[in-house]
């Protein structure tokens, strides 16, 4: 007992003063997630549309995007982070993390978006074209609203996945939630409580959003 007591003296326990530090890190997690998800989704929708519309896009763009789904995100991050110094201008961990997460998100969303467009029944599109809508009007007023509903559950899945995967940017040294928890654990030697707090933060974001989407999906099925 006396032995453990003496080792503990080297560390300061986890206290309320550490909460602002965790909160700041949580803010960073949210920041990088929101940026990556929003920009990545825009690109993803464009890619998805290209995949749907063009055979060549399916072959070339499709196989490039496929690479980002077949290589672990952590490897993508490390590759990219080590690639820019080679070009002569090293990137901040935040910037590198954002770029990789955006590309990663867009690769995942592209598939979802393509599925969404394909979910719009062909007769409905023929109907809108026969009303004299142009291709882009058809896309804007018919395909987008219907397809967006069809892809919402899968898109939410991707978005929540990226939120959780953003934890990996910690390997580049970006101070997000998981990195902050590691720093605190090293100092306080109280891994359990700190991991529980961090886990609770992710859970509190991910769980309600997931449940809400499932509810919406159910409601739309009756429409």
């Amino acid at each position, binding site marked *: 007992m006396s032995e453990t007591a003496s080792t503990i003296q080297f560390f300061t326990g986890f206290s309320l003063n550490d909460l602002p530090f965790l909160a700041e890190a949580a803010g960073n997690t949210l920041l990088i997630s929101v940026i990556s998800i929003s920009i990545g989704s825009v690109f993803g929708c464009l890619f998805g549309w290209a995949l749907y519309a063009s055979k060549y896009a399916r072959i070339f763009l499709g196989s490039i995007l496929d690479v980002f789904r*077949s290589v672990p995100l952590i490897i993508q991050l490390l590759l990219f982070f080590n690639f820019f110094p*080679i070009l002569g201008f090293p990137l901040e961990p935040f910037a590198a993390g954002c770029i990789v997460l955006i590309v990663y998100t867009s690769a995942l969303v592209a598939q979802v978006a393509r599925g969404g467009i394909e979910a719009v029944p062909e007769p409905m599109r023929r109907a809108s074209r026969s009303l004299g809508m142009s291709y882009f009007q058809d896309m804007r007023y018919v395909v987008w609203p219907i397809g967006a509903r069809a892809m919402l559950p899968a898109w939410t899945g991707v978005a929540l996945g990226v939120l*959780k995967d953003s934890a990996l940017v910690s390997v580049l040294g970006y101070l997000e939630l998981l990195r902050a928890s590691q720093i605190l654990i090293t100092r306080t030697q109280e891994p359990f409580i700190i991991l529980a707090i961090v886990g609770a933060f992710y859970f509190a974001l991910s769980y309600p959003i997931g449940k809400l989407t499932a509810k919406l999906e159910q409601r739309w099925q009756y429409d």
Partner: protein
Amino acid sequence: MDYTFHWRPVIKALPDLFSAALITLEAAVLSMIVGIIIGLILAMMRLYGNRPMYFFATVWVELARNTPALLQLFFFGFGLGAFGWHLSPFMIVLCGLAFNNAGYLAENFRGGFQAIPKPQYNAARCLGMSASQTYTRIIIPQVFKLVYYPMTNQMVWAVLMSSLGMLVGFRELSGATQFLASNTFRLFEFFLVAAVFYYVLVKLILLVAHLISRKLFTY
């Protein structure tokens, strides 16, 4: 660009990388086997269990699905250390991945069982089959087809997630790559080759899964 690529250290390390890839595959396969078994049990608990069982299974499933896989790994890594439990790096990865796989698969299995109409069960019982015969011969083969594709997906995820092993000191493909790369300072080259390894591994898994499904599902 004044960087010169040096591939020789990587080529020399290829046999090491290859055996590391096998460790990755091994960890993924083992975690899938454990995950499938636990996932089945969790699905049963949520479908047919009493209240405490339902609660336990639901907590597992929601925790696995709503927190980062890396956090789950850390939990098995140093979180358990708080209780004086220290797992080897291999066990940390195996437990973490199995925990995650089980949570995701449980939901797939539950959906699969719910999708088989009750009359299938009645029809089998009417032929004099026992409850267990009905499950093993009629219900589970049909559920298996429904969950085959999600299971393949989860297997790919398991391979990708196992790369997190490098952060808890496990020398699978990523861990070994980092180790070898930091010895030679050719980080970019090494990680590029590791990426190729992962890509090929994932494509191989999908190919094998496709071939098996063609053989299994003739209907």
